[in-house]
Structure formats: structure tokens, C-alpha cells
């Protein structure tokens, strides 16, 4: 940020030190994972909704059947590595029209995502906001899916995955940075640096072991509706375990 008052560099440094000395508390934020943390849905729900709503009955049926048949593969890939899962999963979007995905996004939110938001999520965000924390969504979901939810929950900021489109058609690849596992933590660190946040005072919430790095970089990590592995890890690290369901 450029200071409004023009001061010589050295003097400005002194003023900054005085200001920071007088107000040592830096801002902080709460970082939320989305799927399984704030709502019950996941990436596959969103994809299945799009598959079911293809143009033409035959296309819908084949895409749905293909999606259902792939579920064991998705589960296996996710349990092995979130990046591998992303590679396999988002390839399914290849050939999808950008217009159609955007058209379906609000409908997907209204019919699938909104009803699946955990009741406790609203309250958690409200309490957190009252503490003066910036509300940030850090999710591997697509921007198309997450956008309406960010607006609905009144979050201040978000980072999502974005599909690559060429000539209005999805290529099945994600634009970098791909939000998953350690990338989330890296993004949180960079974001905190850029926004002047004190990570020790920040909170992060996730349901999945794959978000362990994101949980580990803040001072107040919380496991929310955790899977078995994250629950055990949270117990070992003495992190709070929260059930928003």
C-alpha cells in the first residue's frame, strides 16, 4: 500500500515502527475448506449434477452411468493422493461447454449445495466474523460451484480451482495453482503475507487429512467433521474437533 502522506523513506520506516509498536495486533483470518467442512456435498456431487443435466436424455444417461462407474476409481485415487484424484476427476469435464456450466452453476447451488450446508456452518462463520476475522474459503471445488456459495455465506475472499477453457470448451485441465493439499497451505501463507495477517492468530477448518498442511500453518487449527485419519491426527496434536452436522 502506498502511503497517502509523502515522507522520506527513512522517516516513514520510523513512523511504521511506531505505528506497529502501538498496534502490535495484526489482522487475522479464518480459512475454510468447503466440501465436507461447511457442506455435505463434494466435487462428485457437482459433477454428477452437471452430468445429469446434459443436453439430451441419452447424453445424460451415459454421462451419469460413466460417473457412477468411476466412483471406485475416484475413491481409490483420493485415498492415494489428492493431486492424482484431481487429475483423473477434472479430466471428466473435457468437452463441457463453459456457457452451460455457468448456466447450471446457480441452479446447482440452489438445488444441491445450499440444502447441504451444515446448520452449524452459518453459526461458526457468524461467530468468527464477530471476532473480526476475515472469512476466506480455500477449496479444491471449482469457481463455478463455489462462487454462489461464497456470496451466500458472505465470505470476504476465496480461492478455488478453475477449469481451463479453450474456445469455450473445457480441456479437462485445471489452471494453476491447483488447490489441493500443500498448495492450499502455500496459498494461505502467501495470502497472509500479502494481506498482513498474523498466522498465529488465524483459524483454519477442514474435514480431510489432505488439508493437514493448511491446518498446520495457522495458530488455531480445527478438525471439522473429520475423517478417521484426521480425527486421530487432531487427537495427537490436541486440536479441537468440531461437529457441525
Amino acid at each position, binding site marked *: 500500500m502506498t502511503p497517502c502522506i509523502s515522507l522520506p523513506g527513512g522517516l516513514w520506516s520510523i513512523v511504521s515502527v511506531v505505528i506497529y509498536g502501538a498496534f502490535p495486533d495484526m489482522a487475522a483470518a479464518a480459512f475454510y475448506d468447503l466440501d465436507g467442512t461447511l457442506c455435505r456435498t463434494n466435487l462428485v456431487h457437482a459433477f454428477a449434477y452437471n452430468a445429469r443435466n446434459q443436453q439430451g436424455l441419452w447424453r445424460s444417461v451415459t454421462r451419469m452411468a460413466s460417473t457412477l462407474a468411476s466412483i471406485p476409481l475416484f475413491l481409490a485415487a483420493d485415498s492415494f493422493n489428492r493431486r492424482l484424484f484431481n487429475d483423473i476427476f477434472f479430466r471428466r469435464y473435457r468437452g463441457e461447454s463453459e456457457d452451460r456450466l455457468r448456466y447450471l452453476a446457480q441452479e446447482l447451488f440452489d438445488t444441491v449445495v445450499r440444502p447441504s450446508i451444515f446448520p*452449524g456452518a452459518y453459526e461458526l462463520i457468524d461467530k468468527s466474523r464477530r471476532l473480526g476475522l476475515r472469512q476466506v474459503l480455500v477449496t479444491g471445488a471449482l469457481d463455478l460451484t463455489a462462487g454462489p456459495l461464497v456470496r451466500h455465506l458472505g465470505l470476504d475472499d476465496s480461492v478455488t480451482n478453475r477449469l481451463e477453457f479453450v474456445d469455450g470448451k473445457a480441456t479437462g485441465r485445471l489452471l494453476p495453482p491447483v488447490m489441493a493439499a500443500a498448495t492450499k497451505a502455500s496459498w494461505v501463507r502467501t495470502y497472509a503475507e500479502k494481506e498482513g495477517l498474523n498466522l498465529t492468530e488465524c483459524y483454519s477448518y477442514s474435514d480431510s487429512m489432505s488439508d493437514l498442511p493448511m491446518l498446520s500453518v495457522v495458530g488455531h487449527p480445527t478438525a471439522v467433521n473429520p475423517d478417521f485419519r484426521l480425527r486421530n491426527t487432531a487427537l495427537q496434536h490436541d486440536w479441537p474437533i*468440531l461437529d457441525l452436522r
Partner: protein
Amino acid sequence: MTKREAKPLRGPVPRHKEDDQVVYIDNNSAPRIIFSGTDLLCEDLPIGTRVIYAKPPIEGLANPGAAIRYAINHPLDSEPLYAQLSPGMRVTIAVDDISLPLPPMTTPDIRQTMLEILIEILDANGVDDVHIIIALGSAHRRMTPAEMKRMAGKKIYDAFYPDRYYNLDAEDPDGFVPLGKTAQGEPVNISRRCVESDLVIYLNVTLVPMDGGHKSVAVGLCDYESVRVHHEPDTIAACDSLMDPPRSMLATKLARMGAIVDQHMNVFHIETALNNRMFSSPLAFLGRNEDEFSEFDRLKAETLRLALSKMPEVAKRKMFNAIPAPYQLIACFAGKADPVHERIVAKLNEQYLVKVKGQSDIVIFPIPFISPYNVNSILNPILLQVMALGYFHHFYRGQPVLRKGGALILCHPCYDDFDPEYHPSYIEFFNRLLPETRDSHQLRAKYEEEFARNPSYVEMYRRGYAYHGTHPFFMWYWGEAGRQHVGKVIAAGAKNAHVPATLGWDRAESLTEAIAMARSFVGPSASMTLMKWPPIVMADVE
């Protein structure tokens, strides 16, 4: 020439008893059975050690139901309950939570007996708008449905749960009404449902004199803003003791706040006192003088001690939590808070107070497996601290059993073990805050607000069964008077070094070593007293 009086013999103090509750150890004394968490120790104490035992249980009232009905129909400074009822009125019944009595009593719980009688009376008078609220105060954990059912009985539970029988939610943003402030500026915010009721009936299980009275409504039904004005270090430090209401700053503040409550609400108090029959007959020997044990008692004691020493900690905890106490009702009064509480305290004093001559340089506190805040859970290090320096230190009238600056020996393994579901904020308090400071004022100023507002802790309190984020702070403040009074605390039998160190205590491998350490601190000729808890005994120290 007159005959010279014989001088007392030098050497060991001859075996004598001041009365049945105050016994001195001599050459022929049996070893003492001492609780150390979920274990039992069998210890030969030094000759001359004074051992203070609980009084035998006062015989329970033959017909508790009749006693409760009589109290309701003959209240103190108040109209009888039936005269205050009219069809269509709104009534809220507030009941104490699972922290009382300890351990939970055999069924039917006295609250079930009271509730069944009350609901019958309310029904007969056409009062339908009845809610039952568990008075958790601002920080106690919610009771589980199973615990609620056990406490109120199936009939009440089936009829009222969950819409009309529920836990107080101190974090409900619209759940409290400010009634005003005392002249000293203490805010009194009380549960909206209670304030908006035509009549509030508070059912107390007054286990110790600190409970009951104005504390019931002013603490049990208040929010964080109200509770923090007295759950703070200076108030606790000014209590001499918490168990002696006329000399308790906490009771003074609560009386002021209770006056505000009485200006705005119609509260009908029903207080009960139970005897100290903490152990059912197979374990009743645990409360008796070991010198008077029968052979069978000795066999039972040794068998139990050996069995406990072989069992895993989790199993021992489960076992002790599964044994309810066969408490019996010894008194019930109803009406206005002050006269009711005065009579109940008199009855409790009759049960608990034991006359004791003089203080000691060294005092031994056996710390058992349970505290008000770990029913069905773990006695973690902070709760261990509050049991020793909070509750047990305050179990006196007149002056503490331990002289100022003396050595306090605690018998407990001091496990570094926390329940992540019930006590999540305790974990952070112990591991993050205590290594930085043990100063109550600093902790309050710097961290209490942060823990109070921590969204994770708030949600765990509201949606799970966690104690409120502030509870470990209150527990730490509760030990303030004890911390200021004792010169040294030694944890005898602690299984690790870091828990006592974090709490600011010394560690000893065994009770014998702890006594040697205490003597090196206060002097070799130090006097010594063992408070033989449980059951509850309070010292009336001259």
C-alpha cells in the same frame, strides 16, 4: 508432701482420639488407605500424624417424597407453591446439572423425585406451559440425553425431552435478559425463558455449603458477562472460605446479584441436603478408620488395591464412574433463597464439620478420581489443581487446616491426560498458556476473552459436550486462595515430571519421599494432618 503428678512419657504420642473423627497415628496404628486418583495407596504414616475422618452418614429421611411435599407446602418466607399457581401461567423448573452430587447418586435421583412431585402439582393446578432447564451456568457442558434421562427418570424425560427439557445455552445470542446491575456494577443477565416466566422453581442438590442459595439462579442461569464478575482471582482469594458463606466474597457478591434477581423474578427455591453416604456397603470401609477394620474389611481393601494396581487406567475410570453413590435425603426446605439456604447449610455443617484443634505444618490431600467437572470423563491436571487448591483447600471453617506457608502433599498420579470431547480448551490452556504464566491476573487479562470467543470452542460447547472455552480459566482462579496460602505443593506418586512442573509443584516418587521433602521445607518436627477424603469432611479449625 504432695504426690508429684506423673509427667507424660516422651517419645511417640500415645494412641488417642480427640473424637471418632480425629485420630492420631501411633506405634500400633494400621496403615491408612488413601485415594490417589483411581488407585488406592496403603501407607504407614509417621507417628503423631493426625488423621481426620468424615462423620458417619446421618440417617436418611424415611420418606423423601413426604419431606419434599411438606417443604413445598410449608415454605419459608413464601406462599405455598399451590397458592402461587393458576391455570395458564408460565412456569420454568431449573435443576442442577450433573456436577451434583458426586458421584452421581443411585436412581431415583433426588431431582427425579422432586420433578415428579412438582409436575403432578402443576398438572393438578392446570399449569401446562412448563419447561425444565438444566442450569449449566455459563460454562458447564451440556448433559447428554442418556444423562438427562437418568437424572429426571423415564416418565419426565419421555414427556418433556427435547422441547421442554433441555440444557441452558449460554451462547444463545437472544437467550438472556439483562435485569440490571448491582450498586457495585455487577451485571445480572438471566435466561430469557426464566425471566419471562411467571414462576421459576429452582431444584437444588446442595452438596456443599458453597452450592445453592443465590448461586442457583445468579450463576446457574446466567451468561458469561455475569459470571466473570465473580469467577475471577480476587473474589476467590477473598474467600475464607468458599464453604463458609458469611466469610465468602463469592457468596457476598452473589447475594447482591440475587437481590436483583428477586426484584425481577418470582423464584421458589427447593433445596435438598444429602448425607455423605458416598460408598455402597461393599465399599463402605473406605470411609472408616482403618484401626477399626474387620478382617474382612482388610481383605476387601487389599483385594481392591491389588486389582486397581493391575487394571488399565481406562478400565478403572469406567469402573468408578459406573458405581453410583447411595446418598440419602436428610433435609429439604422450600421458599425464599436466604432462609432456605441457611437451614440447608446448617444441616450440611452437621454432616460435614469436624472440630479440629489447630493447624498443621504439613497436610496430605488424597485426590480421588472425580471432580464436579469430570463425571464420565478424565480428571485432567487443571481439574486436579482445582480439586486440591480450590475445593479441598476450602473445606474448612475458621482457618485452613494447613498453616500459611506450609507444605501441601497431594496424592495423585498427575497423568497428562485430557478428554478432547469434554475439555478441549483445557488442553490449550495447559499446554500453551501455563508454560507462559501461572499468574491468574495475567491469564485473565491476556487470554480469557480469546478463549471465550474462540469460534471452535463456542461451537464445541453448543453442538457437542465441551465445557465452555473459559472454564479452565475459572478452574485456575478457583485455586487462587489455595495458591496464595500454601508454601509448597508436592505431588506424591506423580507418574511424570512435567505435569507437576507446569502446575508449579514439586514431584515425589512416593508419599514417604513427599513427607521427607515437606519436612525439609517446613522443619523436621513439623506437625502433619491427613484429610481422609472421600467421603467429604470439612474441618472446623479452632
